[in-house]
């Protein structure tokens, strides 16, 4: 029985991940149906259902449950953060940006549907994320849904994903990138949406202001952790293992943590961030916090 599994001393993370991934994949599949014109909706679904790790939606649901909410309160928001993540990947992969042909082991959106449709599919996913969170969230006070909308919006634009991508683009090929600038890129490009995922879950699950802020700090740590690990994997793994082009950071002369501080120091930094993240959860019931602790470990020790 699922309940006893979660309550047992040894938290069964694998079973938890499988259960939540199924839940999320089903919810994502249901969220975007093929309407007129079919091509845009097929392009949206192609990237949204391409089988990512669903880390963001899982964080959203886990944070919701940690503060006492039901998964159903956070599922539309969990889908919304994955839609935003997907749209940013579609646009980042475009020829005028990072020019990537491969994503999650499959041809990128513009390779299949053309650049024009890829731009529109990204725009449509962005808009739909907001429509969906507003229209599909059930059992949550309107003020909380509105706060979630504001948080999500903040994580995308010039204080989030876009700011990170802008500085990333303008730093590529430059040799004088410092740790500050590298951190700016990752805090915005990766950590902002991970933070939003956790914070949305906490808000929609009925968390108090203090709980939301604790979880925000947790998310900031694992957001940076996520990127440090990504950088390490880029130099230590093959394209096949990663499902995307490996060694691309080196090939395009991007500044990465291993390049800036060396591989060993980068690994040490990752360990410290994981430890800092878990400290933020120390006031919560350890039993209830186990999914988020396991997700932090998963982000730290993943192999792709």
């Amino acid at each position, binding site marked *: 029985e699922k309940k006893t599994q979660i309550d047992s001393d040894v938290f069964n993370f694998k079973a938890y991940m499988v259960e939540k991934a199924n839940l999320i994949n089903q919810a994502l599949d249901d969220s975007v149906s093929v309407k007129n*014109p079919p091509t845009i909706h097929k392009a949206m679904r192609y990237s949204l259902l391409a089988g990512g790790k669903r880390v963001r939606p899982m964080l959203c649901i886990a944070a919701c449950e940690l503060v006492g909410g039901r998964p159903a309160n956070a599922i539309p928001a969990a889908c919304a953060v994955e839609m935003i993540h997907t749209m*940013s990947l579609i646009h980042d992969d475009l020829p005028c940006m990072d020019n990537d042909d491969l994503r999650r082991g499959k041809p990128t959106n513009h390779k299949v549907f053309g650049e024009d449709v890829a731009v529109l599919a990204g725009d449509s996913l962005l808009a739909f994320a*907001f429509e969906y969170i507003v229209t599909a969230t059930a059992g949550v006070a*309107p003020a909380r849904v*509105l706060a979630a909308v504001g948080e999500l919006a903040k994580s995308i634009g*010039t204080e989030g994903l876009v700011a990170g991508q802008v500085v990333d683009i*303008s730093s590529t090929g430059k040799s004088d990138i410092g740790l500050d600038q590298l951190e700016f890129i990752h805090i915005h490009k990766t950590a902002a949406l991970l933070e939003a995922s956790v914070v949305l879950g906490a808000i929609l699950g009925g968390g108090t202001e203090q709980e939301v802020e604790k979880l925000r700090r947790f998310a900031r740590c694992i957001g940076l952790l996520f990127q440090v690990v990504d950088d390490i994997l880029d130099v230590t793994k093959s394209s096949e293992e990663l499902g995307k082009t490996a060694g691309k950071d080196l090939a395009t002369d991007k500044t990465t943590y291993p390049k800036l501080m060396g591989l060993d120091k980068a690994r040490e930094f990752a360990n410290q961030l994981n430890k800092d993240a878990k400290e933020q959860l120390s006031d919560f019931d350890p039993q209830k916090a186990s999914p988020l602790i396991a997700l932090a470990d998963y982000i730290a020790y993943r192999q792709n």
Partner: protein
Amino acid sequence: TLPMSAQFDLKTYWTTLIKEINHKLDEAIPVQYPHQIYEAMRYSVLADGAKRAPPVMCVAACELFGGSRQAAFPTACALEMVHAASLIHDDLPCMDDDPSRRGLPSNHTVFGVDMAILAGDALFPLGFRHIVSHTPTDLVPETRLLKVIAEIARAVGSTGMAAGQFIDLEGGPNAVDFVQEKKFGEMGECSAVCGGLLAGATDEEIQRLRMYGRSVGVLYQVISDVLEAKLESSGKSDKDEGKKKKGKSYVGVYGVEKAISVAEDLRAQAKKALDGLEKYGERVVPLYSFVDYAADRGFSIDH
């Protein structure tokens, strides 16, 4: 037509609102690090010559039902932000490949294709964020704001303006009607509806605003195409000959005369939609005057 309409000065009403909206938009996008993205966003949102039709229509619709301007301004600004985002993306080389917009170089011509995509990607969420952070909740309950956000998201999304842009590129049978409705009608519809939602209009009134806004949006574009065709035939147009969009306007497909008769139908349809709102007295006059302006262009908006 109402007796008040003769005394109503649309030009003053409009230019006064434009000033306030421009000021609020200017404040809404302060330049920070990384500067270039803010400059790119400001370039399109604050471009000279923008008529601010969506925000002005939103404010007028809100005032019609007794809502205040303070309640409407954040949404009005958001409409202009998402509108700008959509135009920036429409102009991209992989889309309409338009080097200019409103007589100025288009966003990607000045800032590059990558920045233009990102400026659009940032303006969409900024619109939503602006509504959440700037609307006084003592004036507008949260449930109404959620409806406004859903309405804007729907209008710009995969069954709205993005769908219009896709069919514009793709073509197909009856493409012109679909494209005009989605590319130009959707923004008018959304603007009028948002104003009504903010002020708590009933479902039936919202339906009227939907029909009204959509008709005015398409009407404005049809007349613009007719005027452009007339300029072209008199040899005064400075637009490129054989621009690829040409075939997708009513004039390009049906000719000037049919386009003018379509415009007359749209004008009548827009006014009919307003019939049921006359109980609001003279507050409905601005909405009537937009219809006549879209059809007749009795003056030029300058600021």
